[in-house]
């Protein structure tokens, strides 16, 4: 049974269909790359999965349970984390502070325990702090831990986004163009991070405009165009696919 499954998902903005009955299966442990020209509905797809949008038609299943129509926080609680295309951070908070608050889902203590700072609460916080530091180490952000997140250089902000997503200890991680505006080395670095994350048994859905990154990182690729799925398969084969080249050349010639 697939970990994440989309059945006939359609999202309309007014008349325009950003997604038109998309069927998609994501197997556990894979890195699924989703690519396509601009405005082909990649980000909409992530927004639908993460619960930010409600699909007009169709449903999203996680481990066979329907999650479409839930609020983003509920979806996240069920183990789907995401990053954003633009750099998101908590205004004026340092990386460490952001991640401590961001790991809300991990401390299971209720508000009373938090208010009175009971023993269990303190212990949870300690554990979380340790976890945060570990994640930072994993993503080589340790040096930036005490910098205000908003002040980080672009590349690090993308990584920071991933770190925040990881703090919700997800089963599925949706990455929205993690390498935008990066030079080659940074991109490579990010790809390594993605691989590392994947090795921890986290299924990754990677939205990527940059074909090269896709080829390196993804184990399977899906190509969207005008909100419909035009190709699916091993990255290399997909790249050879006639429609895909059409789509890309088409958009590029415009």
């Amino acid at each position: 049974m697939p970990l994440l499954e989309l059945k006939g998902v359609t999202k309309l903005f007014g008349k325009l269909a950003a997604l038109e009955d998309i069927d998609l299966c994501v197997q556990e442990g894979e890195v699924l790359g989703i690519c396509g020209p601009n405005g082909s509905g990649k980000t909409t797809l992530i927004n639908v999965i993460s619960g930010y949008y409600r699909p007009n038609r169709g449903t999203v299943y996680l481990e066979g349970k329907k999650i479409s129509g839930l609020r983003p926080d509920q979806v996240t609680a069920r183990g789907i984390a995401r990053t954003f295309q633009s750099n998101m951070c908590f205004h004026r908070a340092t990386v460490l502070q952001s991640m401590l608050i961001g790991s809300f889902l991990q401390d299971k203590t209720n508000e009373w325990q938090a208010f009175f700072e009971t023993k269990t609460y303190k212990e949870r916080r300690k554990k979380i702090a340790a976890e945060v530091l570990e994640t930072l180490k994993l993503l080589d952000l340790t040096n930036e831990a005490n910098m205000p997140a908003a002040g980080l250089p672009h590349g690090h902000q993308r990584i920071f986004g991933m770190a925040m997503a990881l703090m919700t200890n997800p089963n599925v991680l949706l990455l929205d163009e993690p390498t935008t505006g990066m030079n080659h080395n940074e991109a490579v670095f990010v790809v390594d991070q993605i691989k590392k994350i994947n090795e921890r048994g986290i299924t990754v859905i990677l939205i990527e405009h940059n074909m090269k990154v896709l080829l390196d990182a993804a184990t399977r690729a899906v190509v969207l165009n005008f909100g419909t799925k035009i190709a699916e398969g091993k990255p290399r084969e997909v790249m050879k696919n006639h429609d895909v080249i059409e789509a890309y050349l088409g958009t590029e010639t415009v």
Partner: protein
Amino acid sequence: MPPAGILVDGLVQSCIYMTMAFGMVLVFSILGILNWTHGQFYMLGAFVVYYAVTAAGIPFPISILISGGVIGGLGMLVGRYVIERVNVPGLGLLYVTAATVALNFFFEGGAGMAFGLEDKGLYNALPGVLDLGSFSVSYQKIAVVIFTLVIMVAMYVVLNFTKIGLAIRAAAQEPGAASLYGVSVGRLSIIVMGIGCALAGMAGAIMAPVYGVNPFIGGLPLIMALLAIIIGGIGSLTGAIVGGLILGLFSSIVPYYLGYISELALFLTVITLLIVRPQGLFGVPIRR
């Protein structure tokens, strides 16, 4: 079916609420904030026209335009020196709300100190009554309706056929897009503040003869415009107009049946509507 007189009266109310709500939504669509000072611009507009007519002896129709200009300018100043300065990214909404609410009382008190507290009247602008058999309407009220129609048509033309208007609509859709029309968003927001406040000022001006003028007339139109926006859906111009229409008729018909409980009924209706449809009639849902 209530008598025609009530309906006509309701129509007059709705005209004012429409104009107010329209201006507020226009500002909202660009700046993303509600201008809580709008009611006081209405009040100040009324005062401007009062003094223009009585002190300066300028004919009423012209002084309406004058008050529109003056209040528009004032609105621009407020937009430039208050709203822009406090509208910081992140928590701008909070600061702007606080600032405009404070400004609201600043203007109210200031007007009280400057112009005095007791009612002033302008009955001799367009005096006379048009008799329509079963009921009759004063020319002043007819003027209100005509004026509102003119304003609406004008706004339609501006928004659809002028560069500024297209820029406004583009910016309302997608912030940045205004630059396509060679207008910077900063300038656009000032202009929009000007237009919105001018609308409020002229609404106050045209209403000045109908009800008296005093520093406290701004409160009711503000609240009604806010409710109209809520009903119509925040950020939707159509919604503002429809909401104003509904609210005006409502606020004239319901008292006819319910007496002094009507205001309560009004507020409760709005809240019920929100429970059923949080985004209002024409608004886009909060959760898409």
